[in-house]
């Protein structure tokens, strides 16, 4: 029982990332009808927003110490970050410590801007082209973004630690009456899961309860009629693209402390996220979220030692295996509707 609970918890954080990326993919697909292979790159760019902010905050002035000497006998160099100079020791160090959550603030405008530029500059011209062309051009874009990041940040993962307040783990089992140290869960993963839940709830609420969201939903069902009613649906869809990019970016920002960002993390997540979207049902938002968490938890179960001893390496292929089975049994995915992508 405790083992099962532990695996469910372990699956939640990866599942959250899948769900957020798949949600953005589905939003773009449902509104614009475009298959965006560059969505993983957006996730990666979000993570690198956090990396950049961390680097920026650590820019320092170098002063020479008057008393201390280094092992060569020369005066020791002391680096003082600018923020420490500006805000004082305590506040400055706290800002550096909290660089990952702070990156959310800069990531939102950056990602929305990138989303706008992508949609207006490139994807707009591909609405009427075949899906194969859309896949290929966004795939090329993903390679370009990835290689640029690799060029400027290097190929190695860059650690982005969580704030000190969230280091350590929560002993979850004790709360439920299990023995201590059986079910422990790192605080940051808990934060990530809750953050993802808030964003998912936010997106759904936005679509469900605002006029803007209502128009977008109407446009998803019948774009032409909404256009005939005199609503500039293209503009709203562009905004939705920006929001989808921001969702992917935020998923990336907060994922940094769980796995150090590297330039190919986007591609790694993208392939799985597409599988998630297909399993959930193309064009279905609840399906994408459900499938994201489901596959994340499934992957975590497959990486249990008990299962790995019977099928070594099963954790690598379980998602694809499940996807193939689901597509054979339910060709439209878990919650796919009739008429979406049937041609």
């Amino acid at each position: 029982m405790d083992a099962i609970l532990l695996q469910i918890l372990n699956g939640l954080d990866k599942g959250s990332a899948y769900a957020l990326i798949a949600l953005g993919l589905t939003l773009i697909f449902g509104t614009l009808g475009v298959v965006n292979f560059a969505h993983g790159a957006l996730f990666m760019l979000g993570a690198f927003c956090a990396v950049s902010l961390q680097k920026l905050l650590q820019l320092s002035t170098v002063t020479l110490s008057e008393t201390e000497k280094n092992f060569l006998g020369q005066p020791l160099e002391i680096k003082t970050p600018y923020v420490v100079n500006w805000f004082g020791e305590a506040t400055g160090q706290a800002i550096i410590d909290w660089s990952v959550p702070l990156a959310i603030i800069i990531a939102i405008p950056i990602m929305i801007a990138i989303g706008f530029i992508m949609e207006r500059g490139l994807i707009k011209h591909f609405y009427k082209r075949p899906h194969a062309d859309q896949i290929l051009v966004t795939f090329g874009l993903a390679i370009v973004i990835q290689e640029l990041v690799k060029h400027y940040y290097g190929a190695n993962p860059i650690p982005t630690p969580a704030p000190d307040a969230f280091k350590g783990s929560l002993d979850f089992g004790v709360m439920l009456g299990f023995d201590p140290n059986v079910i422990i869960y790192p605080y940051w993963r808990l934060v990530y899961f809750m953050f993802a839940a808030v964003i998912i709830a936010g997106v759904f609420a936005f679509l469900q309860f605002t006029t803007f969201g209502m128009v977008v939903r109407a446009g998803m069902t019948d774009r032409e009629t909404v256009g005939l009613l005199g609503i500039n649906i293209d503009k709203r869809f562009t905004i939705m693209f920006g929001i989808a990019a921001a969702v992917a970016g935020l998923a990336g920002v907060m994922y940094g402390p769980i796995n150090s960002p590297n330039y190919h993390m986007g591609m790694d997540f993208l392939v799985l996220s597409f599988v998630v979207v297909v399993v959930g049902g193309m064009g279905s938002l609840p399906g994408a979220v459900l499938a994201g968490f489901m596959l994340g938890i499934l992957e975590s179960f497959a990486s249990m030692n008990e299962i790995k001893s019977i099928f070594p390496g099963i954790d690598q292929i379980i998602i694809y295996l499940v996807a193939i089975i689901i597509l054979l049994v339910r060709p439209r995915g878990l919650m796919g509707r009739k008429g979406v992508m049937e041609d």
Partner: protein
Amino acid sequence: MLGIEKRDLSLLVIVAILAFCAPFILNPFPTGSAMAQFNAGYPDLMQRFVIFGILAIGFNILFGLTGYLSFGHAAFLGLGSYSAVWMFKLLGYNVLPGIVLSVVVAGLFALLIGYISLRRSGIYFSILTLAFAQMTFAIAYSDLFGKMLGFSLTNGETGLQVYTSDPQYFHSDSAPNIPHLFGQEMQSTFTWDVAGWSFDFNFGYYMCALIMLVMFYLSIRIFRSPFGLMLMAIKTNQTRLNYTGLNSRPYTLAAFVISGMYAGLAGGLLASMDPLAGAERMQWTASGEVVLMTILGGAGTLIGPILGAGFIKYFENIFSKINEKVLHSWFDFLPESLEYGVVWVLEHFVGSGWHLTLGLLFMLIVIFLPGGLVEGGQKLAALFHRKKTEDTPADGAKTPAE
């Protein structure tokens, strides 16, 4: 002749001449000259030209004719390589059984994967093939079945290779200890030095080139057959085809299996040239490269994939060789600040930045030239042609005025 039209025959002859004269064509600069770095006539690179040509020709039969975009063709390439190396391990270094088995294995897997993936079309098909390819990659990389069966099937991340302890049942002592075809070593190269130039004639390359020509001929026959017409009809309008009461799935499945067998053959040849098979050959970036080759040359055209494969492999080789130093030596005629600026911009695209160039190329081709190099060539030709025809009436208009 050969049961094909005159135009296709001339295409075949051109490709044949290009393939057989490749050692000359690819080595236009004397060795030791400054331009020698643009030579591409080494056996290793020439072999890759034709092998990836075979892969792209096969991919074109699926993508170019039916429009089904498979993102998992690298899986068949890898499967072909693994089967060929297993034949080397079990039977000996003669490449023939290895190549035959690689085609058969890739064909069988293509039948299985195609049967499942082709139940869906469009983007679903692309993702299903991608999922299968990633699964095959993960299985090969973690050696899943090997661990379950208790021996090393793919040898995990090290890659499968031939060891001296392997049985090699048909290995005779007179046969060479490297891949060979009935005693003729793949590596054997005849170098012809003439007046500063040096041309390499490699046995392995000529074997691959010959196979490539046969495969090209086969693809011409497929393109011009009723079967090929049916595939083109599927690309044009599958719904209408289905309304006429025709089941299109056997045709697409056949195309998928054929193109999978082409990929398996290419994988087998890769392993024959260098008896090593690694899982990274199956990664989805490798699948993307095949797609790019076909698109770059021109999907759906006969010659396009070969052009695309040659183009990409050539520039991959050249671009990877250029580094900052070379760039500085090229631009040192510029004023210093300008020189540094130009080099700073260009160094993004060369050396390890080759993938960036590849990605940009991918985008530019898809955006501006969806028909690839072949379409570009046709457009250019049409441009010159139009100029000529415009000139003639202008002259004609002048004459009566006199």
